[in-house]
């Protein structure tokens, strides 16, 4: 059994059932057979069929052989650390989105840059991160706010 494919199949099935269930809430109009529900329902059924196929295929397949280069524990540990980094980047991006409105473009972009650079660095180089963060924040501001005349938030607390 291929666990990742089986999981994807189950998630796909869940999404197809969820999508079909939501389409039942769309008002149906008797003008034509192809109303607002028609296309999404067709797609939900198709997604369900494909996901079921993927699930069955994964259940019948042989388990993939793990890489022999590293011990399984080591592989799992480094994979876990990398996944945590990605989770950190995603959470950081969501925080950046809301922080931009609150503390403004300059401070939030500076902090977000330093945060992402620290996530990427094995050895933390503070001076490098700060100097790049200042330069990139400045260049981004010049491009978007001055050249493209986009209004970047100054931050609620600075108003």
């Amino acid at each position: 059994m291929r666990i990742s494919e089986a999981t994807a199949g189950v998630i796909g099935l869940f999404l197809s059932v969820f999508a079909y269930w939501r389409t039942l809430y769309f008002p149906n109009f008797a003008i034509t057979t192809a109303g607002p529900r028609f296309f999404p329902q067709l797609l939900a059924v198709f997604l369900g069929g494909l996901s079921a196929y993927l699930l069955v295929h994964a259940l019948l397949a042989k388990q993939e052989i793990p890489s022999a280069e590293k011990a399984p524990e080591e592989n799992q540990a480094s994979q876990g650390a990398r996944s945590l980094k990605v989770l950190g980047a995603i959470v950081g991006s969501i925080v950046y989105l809301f922080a931009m409105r609150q503390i403004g473009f300059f401070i939030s972009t500076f902090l977000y840059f330093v945060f992402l650079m620290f996530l990427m660095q094995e050895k933390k180089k503070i001076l490098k991160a700060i100097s790049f963060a200042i330069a990139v924040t400045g260049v981004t501001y010049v491009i978007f706010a001055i050249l493209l005349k986009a209004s970047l938030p100054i931050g609620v607390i600075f108003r």
Partner: protein
Amino acid sequence: MEDFLRAFLIVFQPINILMMAGGMFIGILFGSIPGLTATLAIALLIPFTFGLPAIPSLILLLSIYNGGMYGSSVTAITIRTPGAPASAVTMLDGYPLALKGRAGTAISISCIAGTIGGLFSVGVMILLSPPLSRIALKFSPVEYFSVALFGLSTIFAVSGKSPTKGMIAGTLGLILSTVGIDVHLPVPRFTLGIPALQAGLPFVPAVIGLFALSEAFRLVEKGGLVTKITAKIETIFPTWEEFRGTLKETLRGSVIGTLVGMLPGAGATMCAFIAYSETKRTSKHPERYGTGELNGVASPEAANNAVTGGAMIPMMTLGIPGDAVTAVLLGAFIVQGLMPGPLLFRDHMDIVYPIFAGMILSNLMMLAMGLALLPFTSAIAYVEKEVLVPIVAIFGIVGAFAMSGAVYEVGVALFFGILGYILERYGFPLAPVCLALILGPIAENSLRQSMIMSNGDPTIFFTRPISLILLILAVLAVTVLLVKQRKGVIVPEV
């Protein structure tokens, strides 16, 4: 002819030349950096074009497309790391040439062949697009649905190793394309009670998320390794004899790239592979390939650059993109208030001619800049990922925010960024999602209009000749690809 001359005069305006040079530089830069692609560059740059008129905007993005194709060959030759999958085959002979101290010659040949391929395909595009668009003007919703279905059948071609996963990703994209108020009736769909979702999921932030933010997350996972230089650029220009010796294969690659590139879903990678194998198959010395043969660089590079013109034909005449990069470009047209398709050729020839002229000049600029920047381009690949990732993420988020100053667009970009990362992590390709977001509304609208026309009778799609031919082609395309994959012929992901 007069219209063409006027178009060239427009393209020669300083702003357009500046955009072309800027786009070319960005394209070469992104193409050269392994992991970054022209698609990502175009997605990131679309928000920059909001304040610009249509012609400079489209010239900028089309130049990125051209530059990206060439740029990816540089690192394939110098450090055996193709900037994009399309140049993987160039590596086979390009890197052995570099080891012989002839990296400069290989890159020059790649640039010259790419220019010839690009110019050839633009010529074909100029010849074929107007008559094709006149035929397409006669299409009813029935034919349009079949065209969209044919376009969607290409999801199999852009699915890499697993067609099932490609179809799942595509279907997910189609479902996401239905979010918002219904196209015919004032019915909210999949809005989950969130008022902002009634406007649907805007395409540009979705593309920024799918290709830029998801890539940033993926690079965070992979870490910040930098490859060491293994080849030096010593000689730069090929001799006249060497150039003449590659001309035949350059033309072969140009024809293959243009013709195959026109087929939705074929993509630059597949064209380059076909061109290389044809060149090797017809060579008197096939044993030389893989050891540093200049024709092994010229043919695939001409082919992958010729795809640019070929792939633009269905996008511009029918409004049907054949791969991820033309789908993103289609989004850029829409941002400018232009809907690619037959009406573009009827109502906006003032834009179409400068696009043609811009593509010709952009190819010539690629030759000039490619050769002039040659000593520096191989160094591009050494931009450290720890700096690159925050830049890509910030430009993606700020770019999405700058579209309307609303958090909603950034939220959509982040949603697609996370979705794209998860999908890729589990082996689901992203190109089908992007294609489906563009083709979904076209398919649904034409399907429902057709059903109204036929009073709910689905046989209408089989009783009209063009529609029937397109449906047969769609089934054939899927069958051929499935048979090839079952036989173990891996179709490269676009």
